[in-house]
């Protein structure tokens, strides 16, 4: 996967953001929370690369610091949703009786658009980062369950699973050593996509004013505040917006790159041709 330039760039961008945001307090020339009423809504300049906001704060600095929330939320949601989804998916896929119950619950959860579900949860729980993470994990977990379950269903009838049973291997060992290692690729790929979607979701929620509390810098919050100034200070909206786009794109590219590299069974012209050639050569 690291052979393709495109993938390397995507990973590079992500790492760059992560490092930049973690070390922000060390290298930012101007503190992003420095309020200066005399410098309100200035356009991009040498002093302020992205301009200033309605409080005179440096937008570039804010964008970098806001990345923290997005990345943390995205990553944590991805991890939690993946863990929960994998566990439920494994059980649902492997045990027919549990399947029925689990899938009806999951179907119910999937019936709600994920954003609305998150919205409802935040409304009940309140708008701090932890609650956002909980809400979004809850909305994204069912997708992972579905994916894991269908992967398990594909593996279950294979002969090496039968062989494990006939040689006395217990169910937990089968699930952990025989099933899980062979379905890792869709899990990882989907996890990356959830990461991206969670970032978007958090930004959307904050933009709507029902996400993270306004005092914490997030891209969504920035967009929320920038709304009314959009005609006079478009840079206030543009830069956080671009940041979101780049991050999500990078994550999507990583996800696709992982999929192409890890799972030869999925779609994609290159993969299909590879298979056709392999088939002919092997059967020749």
């Amino acid at each position, binding site marked *: 996967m690291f052979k393709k330039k495109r993938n390397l760039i995507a990973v590079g961008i992500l790492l760059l953001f992560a490092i930049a945001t973690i070390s922000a307090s060390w290298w930012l020339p101007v503190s992003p929370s420095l309020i200066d009423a005399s410098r309100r809504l200035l356009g991009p300049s040498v002093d302020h690369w992205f301009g200033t906001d309605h409080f005179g704060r440096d937008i570039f600095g804010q964008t970098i610091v806001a990345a923290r929330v997005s990345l943390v939320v995205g990553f944590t949601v991805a991890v939690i949703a993946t863990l929960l989804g994998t566990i439920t998916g494994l059980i649902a896929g492997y045990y027919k009786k549990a399947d029925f119950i689990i899938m009806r619950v999951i179907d119910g959860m999937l019936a709600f658009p994920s954003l609305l579900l998150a919205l409802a949860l935040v409304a009940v729980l309140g708008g701090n980062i932890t609650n956002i993470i909980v809400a979004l994990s809850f909305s994204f977990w069912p997708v992972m369950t579905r994916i894991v379950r269908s992967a398990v269903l594909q593996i279950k009838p294979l*002969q*090496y699973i039968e062989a494990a049973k006939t*040689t006395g291997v217990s169910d937990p060992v089968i699930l952990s050593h025989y099933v899980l290692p062979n379905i890792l690729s869709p899990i990882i790929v989907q996890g990356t996509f959830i990461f991206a979607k969670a970032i978007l979701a958090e930004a959307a929620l904050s933009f709507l004013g029902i996400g993270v509390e306004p005092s914490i810098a997030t891209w969504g919050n920035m967009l929320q505040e920038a709304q009314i100034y959009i005609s006079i200070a478009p840079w206030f909206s543009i830069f956080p917006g671009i940041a979101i786009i780049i991050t999500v794109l990078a994550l999507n590219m990583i996800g696709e790159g992982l999929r192409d590299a890890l799972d030869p069974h999925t779609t994609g012209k290159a993969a299909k041709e590879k298979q056709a050639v392999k088939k002919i050569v092997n059967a020749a």
Partner: protein
Amino acid sequence: MTEPLLEIRDLKIHFPIKSGVLQKTTNHVKAVNGVNLSVNKGETIGIVGESGCGKSTLARSIVGLLKPTSGEILFEGERIQHDHQKGMHKIRRDIQMVFQDPFTSLNPRMKAGDIIAAPLKAYKMTENLQGRVKELMDRVGLKAEDYDKLPHQFSGGQRQRIGIARALSLNPKLIVLDEPVSALDVSIQAQVINLLEDLQKELGLTYIFIAHDLSVIKHIADKVAVMYLGKVMEFAGNETFYKDSRHPYTNALLSAVPLPDPEKERRRKQIVLSGELPSPSHPPAGCVFHTRCPFAQEACKLEIPSLKAVDDNADHLVSCFFPMSAEEQLAKLSQTTSG
């Protein structure tokens, strides 16, 4: 007379077909529909049949992967209780299986050595694990250095050897082999067949060998059973089966196998069956073969024949009301076409 190692009594395995929103059972696929079979220690029983005959389903219930709908399987005189987890775990040490597909019968993420060691680990027989695995690899003709390789790094024939080593690891008494060489190249088939025969001699194994290739069965089996739509049509010793078969289906089956011998092929008269295989969810009434049998009579449509001895030979059983030899069958057929 010693008791048989394995006995199958009136085994039936039916799979429910569910349809509709409420998933009601509308019908059953009668994969195995009344099979009686006896296997003695040290023998190789060949089970042949075409697709849908139930041989794979039968194999899977012998090793405990499928639960019978009715009937019983007795191992060393005792009934195999498919529901009883502890009992099954115990019996699995004695009954093992070699699978058909060298590509999907091995966990692609496990090293070859670990695949062979897995049964030993499952039964907590971990003393000198690596040593025993290497010994097994050696015995099946694999190099011990290949312990750490993954399945895709081996060829088809080698992968089958890994599967065989895995089956041997627990020192089983009975091995069920489900089409173990069908997916292999002709030149590799011979290697694996030779290996299986050597192992049987060395270790005193009993084999149930399932195949659709009659030439392979001819080579390796002591006794042969032919299945059709879930039932045994004929059961006989090897020589008897191939030279003196009496069931019209067996005769047709044997006659349909092409010989790698152009002159013999040209001189041969084939019995070609008409019609298609009926669906296992709607097996014909009476004798299941009657819809394709060139000699079906009224009785065949009404009653189900049971396995009866031919010419008072208890070792040759046929499930037919009007058994006849291949020559008789050919003669009768040419009569009707020329008449």
